[in-house]
């Protein structure tokens, strides 16, 4: 029997509440608030308490989906990224870079958001970039 509590930080917003993810023999069994955390001091909101609920959820997407003839069809990452690059390139060429907007996420790391900002300004060429907390 292997009982583990893994310290982690909530993925849902930027507050940075800390919690332990409890696993028994590698299976998720619970979430404990981290009482020793100076950020959240043993408290969480409903998202924190349910932070693992998507992991084994039957509705969880495991591949990208591409809409073909009105239906969403499972696709490979290569296929999806190629399609996105082609379409973004075509839109930029036809309507200009400011016809494209980028939405970032508080669930990403600081570094990932930095890269998204570079992608918007240096690759696409637009200042249309915002953050999910203002949606």
């Amino acid at each position, binding site marked *: 029997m292997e009982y583990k*509590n893994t310290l982690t930080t909530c993925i849902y917003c930027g507050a940075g509440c800390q919690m332990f993810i409890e696993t028994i023999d590698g299976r998720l069994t619970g979430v404990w608030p981290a009482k020793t955390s100076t950020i959240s001091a043993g408290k969480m909101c409903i998202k924190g308490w349910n932070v693992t609920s998507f992991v084994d959820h039957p509705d969880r997407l495991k591949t990208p989906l591409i809409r073909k003839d009105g239906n969403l069809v499972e696709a490979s990452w290569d296929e999806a990224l190629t399609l996105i690059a082609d379409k973004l390139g075509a839109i930029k060429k036809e309507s200009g870079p400011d016809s494209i907007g980028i939405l970032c996420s508080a669930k990403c790391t600081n570094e990932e958001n930095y890269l998204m900002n570079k992608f918007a300004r240096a690759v696409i060429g637009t200042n249309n970039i915002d953050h999910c907390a203002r949606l």
Partner: protein
Amino acid sequence: MIEEIRKTVAERLNELDGVVALRRTNGSVAPYVFQKGDDLSELEITPKYPLMTVVSRLHKLFPTIRLGIVARGCDERAYVEMAKRNQIDPDRLFILGLACTAEEAQACYCGDPAPQHLVVGTKPAAGPPNPLVAKYDSMPLPERRAFWKQQFAKCIKCYGCRNICPECFCEACGMEDAAWVEPGLLAPIFPTFHLIRALHMASRCVACRECENTCPAHIPLTVLYDLMRRDMGDLMGYVPGADLKAQPPLSLTLEQAPLRQEAGH
């Protein structure tokens, strides 16, 4: 004191499959199941967690596992009420009782700050009663209603009070039933949301105070539960967590467990 606990746990690990306690790793303390060969210098006793929940999960997953637990008074009381409701198997659990310090008893307003199976430490004086309970008692009814209305208006409906509670283990929860609690309302509907839990806690609440400690809205929930415990004692002569043999009155008929008196408050 902590060295004494580590030594006792090490001895017990010769005959048990594991001992549920707290462990410090990378500066954080969390529940853990110590097994033979583990580094017992990592064992800690604060901050307290409702460790009986871990025992319950393990007893349900592993039908023959034999565990120990480093238990405070409230852990032992939780053990008593969980055993009565088939959440753990008392024959497969060894209680390694730990007394709280006088400061901890004071901070928790704890009336019974040491387990009956005391192994380490000496029982301190009981903490004082929560002064907010006396204040609440002196309020006339409309003021009490206004008090809870104001407190429950702060609720962000995180369900933390229910999730952290060692005695909240129903598979279907009334607090998630749309017939009682209209979905999508913040604060949740007054007073149904909190009173569903309060009523279900009658004869279950073991005064561990985890609900109040984990509440991000600082709602003084234990005032509600201290009063519920008091009424259970006054009306039914039942103290949750005190006696493994006493039957919870809410699982008996009124003929089997008649009321002792009318509610005086």
